[in-house]
Each structure stands twice: as C-alpha cells, then as structure tokens.
C-alpha cells in the first residue's frame, strides 16, 4: 500500500486584486493585492492611516470598494458579475455573505442591553433561525472555550475589557464563520488583559481558522502568523513569512516602521 499524498490545490479564502477605496478625495486604499489561503493566519501591520482597518472593513462589505476586485471564497464581495457587468447585491445576499465572516472590533461593540449569552445567541437565533435551546447550548460551550463559562449571565458593563473582547470573539464564532477578521482586538485593553485575548486567538489559529488580524502585537505576529503583510500609504509594501518580514525586511519603509515598534 502506498500512501497517496494528493497535491491539495491551494484554495483562497480572500483574494484582493488592485482594491481601491476613497473617502471623498482621500484615497485610503490605492491598490491592494493580497491572497489569503484557507486556514492561514495573516497579520496586517502598518502605521496608522495606512488603510489596514479600512481594508478589513471592505472584506465584510462594511465599506464598498471603489475599484479592483475583492473575493471571498472565490465569489465577489458585495457584487455579482453577470456577463462582465457588476450588479450590487441585495441586502439579503450581503447579509448571507457577512454571516460567514466573523468580525471582532477594537471597541468590542457588545450589545450592552443583553447578557453575555444573549450577545452570543442573538445572531444564530434571529439570523439563522436556530432553536434557542440548541443555540444556548452551543453558546455556553463557546463561552467556556473563551474561559467565561461563569459569566454567561453578566451584562457587558459588568465585565473587564479582556472579558468583553472574549465574549465578542465567542459571539462572532457562534455564527460558525469561515473567516475571522480582527481589527486591533487588543488596542483598547489594559496591558495585563492583552494576553488573555491573544491566548484565545492563538487557540483559534491552532484549530485551523482562517484569520486576518490587524494588530500591533509583534510577538503574536511572529508566533502565530503564517504571513505578515506590511501596508503603508494605501499599498502593500511587503508581504511574506514573519521571519522574513519582521526579522529581515527588504523595504526601507518596513525597516523604518519596525525600528520604531520593536
């Protein structure tokens, strides 16, 4: 018996081709090209204003792109291509696409009028129509996974920042997303609370979740990322494995940025 190792074709979870985004006259994304293979963890680095967060928000269509093409699971995001002509997607279709993409925000954005468990089951029950009992059961498992089994009945304001962010991650995971976007998830946290959130993210990465993470946590990038993308001025300046980009950057702008943050 020979063990057949089939060459798995690399499927792309996200692909950006010359993505452009303007706010008025301000061109935030000039031309972004990026490929995120399924199961990989990509960390976006760059100075503030370089367009990292905007790019992340384009991926789940919170922002509409002005040029280029952006694909999720090899389908256009927010548009349909009908014989070379782009048609805007209907609300329902956009919602369906978004429901497969989890997003975690810098400011947590938990729903303050709902307890932790209700935050987690709100979307599964109301968007997917899952039964409340099974959603609650899954939700409690997810809260346990982020270490908050005892806090299911707490309101967000009764939780610390790190706990809130972990609930937010559980809330995103409850929709069973194919892709997770993290927009500076630890920037609003007290230093001693950063690690409990990073630990949950490491755990997710180990389980094979495809993740795109905007962060300034260099340790996390070095340890967890499959590739690091350095953005500046609306372009991808440099991309590659963390050892190369972080330890041996080729571009002067990358070198300059890293010398300031490391």
């Amino acid at each position, binding site marked *: 018996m020979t063990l057949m190792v089939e060459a798995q074709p690399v499927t792309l979870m996200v692909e950006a081709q010359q993505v452009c985004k303007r706010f008025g006259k301000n061109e935030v994304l000039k031309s972004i090209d990026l490929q995120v293979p399924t199961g990989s963890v990509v960390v976006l680095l760059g100075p503030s204003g370089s367009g990292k967060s905007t790019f992340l928000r384009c991926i789940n269509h919170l922002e509409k792109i002005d040029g280029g093409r952006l694909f999720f699971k090899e389908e256009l995001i927010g548009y349909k291509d009908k014989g070379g002509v782009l048609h805007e997607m209907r609300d329902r279709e956009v919602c369906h696409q978004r*429901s497969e993409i989890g997003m975690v925000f810098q400011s947590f*954005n938990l729903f303050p*009028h709902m307890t932790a468990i209700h935050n987690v089951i709100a979307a599964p029950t109301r968007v997917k129509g899952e039964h409340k009992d099974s959603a609650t059961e899954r939700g409690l498992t997810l809260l346990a996974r982020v*270490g908050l089994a005892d*806090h299911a009945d707490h309101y967000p304001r*009764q939780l610390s920042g790190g706990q809130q962010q972990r609930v937010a991650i559980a809330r995103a995971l409850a929709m069973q997303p194919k892709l997770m976007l993290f927009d500076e998830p630890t920037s609003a946290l007290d230093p001693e609370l950063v690690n409990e959130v990073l630990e949950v993210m490491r755990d997710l990465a180990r389980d094979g979740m495809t993740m795109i993470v905007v962060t300034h946590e260099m340790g996390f990038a070095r340890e967890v990322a499959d590739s690091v993308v350095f953005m500046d001025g609306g372009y991808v300046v440099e991309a590659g494995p963390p050892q190369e980009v972080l330890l041996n950057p080729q571009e002067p702008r990358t070198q300059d940025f890293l010398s300031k943050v490391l």
Partner: protein
Amino acid sequence: MSDSLSMAAPPGQARPAPKPIRAVPIRHYGRWVGAVISIGVAALIIRLFVITPNINWPKVAHYLTFRDILVGLELTIILTIAAMVLGLALGILIAVMRLSVNPVLRTLSWFYIWIFRGTPLLIQILFWFNVALIIPNLGIGIPGTSWWVSENTNLLVTPFVAALIALGFNEGAYMSEIVRAGIMVVDYGQTEAALALGMKRTLLFRMIVLPQAMRAIIPPTGNEFIGLLKNTSLVSVIAAQELLTKAQNIYARNLLVIELLLVASFWYLLVTSLLMWGQYYVERYFARGATNRPLPPTPPQKLRKWLGDKFSGVKVAAYTKTSQAEDNPAEGGAP
C-alpha cells in the same frame, strides 16, 4: 526635611488612630427665618384658597365620584392612551424616515414635523372636527371595479375621532424628534457589530438600536404622556365629552365652577401620578445593562426592607431581584 520619610510609622507597627474632630457647628439663623416666612406664605395661601366659605368642599367630594365625571375620566384616559399609541407609532415612522437615506422620505418627514409642530394644537383639533368642509364624503374602493364604499365624513369623524386624529398626529411630530434623538445616541459601532453578524437593517433596528434608544426616549416620553393627558382637555372645544367637558356641562347647570374644576384637577393629578409611577418602572426595565452596579431598590423594596429590619423576625427578600450579579465584575479570569 531630610528625615520626613522617617515620620511614617515603621511597617508592622500600628499608629494611634487620629482623634475625631469636635467643633461647634455654624448656626444658620437665615435658614430659620426663611423657613418661618415660607410657612407663613403657605398658610396664607391655604387660608385664601382652602379654608374659605367660597369653596363648597362637600360638593367637591360629592362630584368626585359623580357618574358623569367618571364617564368623562374614562374617555380622557382612553383618548390619552389611544393618541399616545398613534403618536408613538407615527413618531417612530417619521423618525426613521428622517434618518433615511432616501431624500424624498427625509423631506416628507421634515414637512410633517414642520406642519404638526408648527401650528397650535387647538387649531388642529378644530380643523379635524371640521374636515367635512373640505372632504364631504370619505370612501374606499378598488379602481376599475364597481366595489366602492362611501360615507358622509361628518358621520365618520365624530368628536372622538377628530380628537384622536388631532392629538395623535400632533403627538407624532413631537415623538418623532424624541425618537430621532434616542436613535442618534446609540453608538454606530452597535450597528456595525450587528451588520457584521449578518443582521438585516430591520432586525438590527428592532433588536439592537431601538432597545438602547429607549433609555433616552422614555424620560421625555413620560413628559409627553403627561402633557398629552392634559391636552385632552383642549378637545372640550369640540364637545368630545371627556373629563373637562363633563365638568363644564355640570357647572353650566349648577354654577359650582371652582368646585368642578377642582374635581377635574384631582383626577388629572391622580392619573399623572399613576403615569409617573409607571414611568419609574419602565425606566428601570430599560436600564438593564446600563450600569455595572445592581439597580437601587424600588420604594416598595425599600419599605419591605425597612419593615424587615424593624420586625426582624420576618425575613424579607428585598434585594434578591436586583443583586444577582454582585460578584466582583472586574476580576481577571485567566482563559
């Protein structure tokens, strides 16, 4: 100077507790004078308006539960609630229209508010009562078929209907501004988070934005409710048979003007008090999650606790409902 540090007690050695301050308090003579003058003025007012032979108090007591008055009170309450429901529904609709991306809807809602808030309520009441002068017949039908129902407007728009439309539409204009303010208070991050979870705009509004907006909406709505209750007295101009109209009808016959106005005022005050009591509990309901502390006990809970303390044999669970989450909210909790 250099040995100021050594003034601190060495560790492990208890320092004597500082002596409590015993000082002679300031005497506030002005407060005493002020209190005496105020009581004097209050006594004078009571003397003029309460202890006077010109008010027949037994008659006030008699008419307080007079059948006609109670019938009028019932209509006043029904009218208030119905107009508020109409006003709230219109208010939410107009507020959503004003915040819409559609310029036509925005403009229309602006005009609605402009007209209904910009003209006196009294005129609006008279207008709807006389609407038959513009539209003599009201009807509905399906175009292209012979199905057509029509009715004389004067038969359809009774004083009650005119009052309801006038009060409700007017209230809608005010409520829409209150609702709009409440919606704008909710952080946009809430909308983004809900969108990112795949929620549609309608669900997001109902489930995420509106419940949070309610916290800002309720206190001014309480005001509106009370204002509306009293504004129902304006519909006495079209003889809608509500509380004030009934009182006026009675004093037109027996000339006990002040007595019946007092009777009406008593009922307005009583209903207002009930509304304030209700508002307190509705506010509490929408305050969940708004603070990191358990809500303070309600007055009945306080009373029960006080009674429980007084008669300590009886165990009273005064705080149980509000203090489930009293464990330290900010503990680290390793994942």
